[in-house]
């Protein structure tokens, strides 16, 4: 069970992830995939402070695509985090997420974004990113916490879904 959750959340490592999902999934590792943070020591330090006893790794998108292949054979339970849908799209398009579910947990209001759910706001380009993730064979589901209702974003956005259940 290498990757136990793929999550898109602007806040990356924070209360809902560490306490809410962490309590449910008991991860050994958080993998933060972000080209900027992978190069920023001080930001990495910030996020490590919030992760408790779990290991935290930071990778660029390109390096993460390779790392995820390694993690597939690793017994450590990993939560993969990106702070935008575009990065998750790039991971999905690498081919390693067929049949998996992408969890969308927190994309807040910003200029150009439209409200989809109270905790999910998307710009037109991000809706396109969701479609590309679906095209890559993954499902996209909004759910901020494990006990919250699952919302299929393909249905919510009127997109075409090809993937089977993860």
């Amino acid at each position, binding site marked *: 069970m290498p990757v136990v959750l793929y999550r898109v959340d*602007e*806040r*990356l*490592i*924070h*209360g809902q992830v*560490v*306490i809410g999902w962490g309590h449910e999934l008991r991860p050994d590792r958080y993998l933060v995939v972000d080209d900027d943070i992978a190069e920023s020591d*001080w*930001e990495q330090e*910030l*996020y490590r*402070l*919030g*992760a*408790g006893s779990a290991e935290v790794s930071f990778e660029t998108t390109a390096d993460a695509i390779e790392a995820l292949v390694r993690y597939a054979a690793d017994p450590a339970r990993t939560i993969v985090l990106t*702070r935008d849908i575009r990065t998750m799209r790039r991971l999905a398009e690498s081919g390693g997420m067929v049949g998996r579910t992408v969890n969308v947990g927190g994309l*807040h*209001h*910003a200029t150009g974004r439209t409200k989809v759910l*109270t*905790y999910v706001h998307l710009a037109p380009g991000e809706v396109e990113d969701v479609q590309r993730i679906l095209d890559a064979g993954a499902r996209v589901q909004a759910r901020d916490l494990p006990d919250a209702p699952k919302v299929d974003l393909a249905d919510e956005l009127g997109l075409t879904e090809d993937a089977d259940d993860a």
Partner: protein
Amino acid sequence: MSEIAPPIGIVIAHGGMADGLVGAVRHIAGDSADMLVPISNEGMSPEDLRAAIDRAADGGSAVVFVDLQAGSCCTAALASCRACSDRVVLTGVNLPMLIDFVFNRTRPFEELVDRLVERSRDAIRPVRVDAGRGA
């Protein structure tokens, strides 16, 4: 010699906790609570949260009280206070900590910070009443 302005307190927490805590301080300590700025993380992006802290601090000294270390509030506070010697982030905010702050914020900054940590920890203790005594 210019006088150093005492820090303001910024309370940043999940949901309605910050408003609730500052309201409780006002209930107990009156207008001294004006020195506290409550900020909720609800519906806020990391950038919005950090900007709200920066606005509240207004370039001055601040004690930033947060609820959880593992939280977006703490991450935003640490980012805002990075490389600022006159700002500090204190996790595990509680009511005794805030009340002590509003009455002692004119103390030297480091002394104040040590005091707040000590007083807030001291406030957490088991209290039992011996039901057999005085009956």
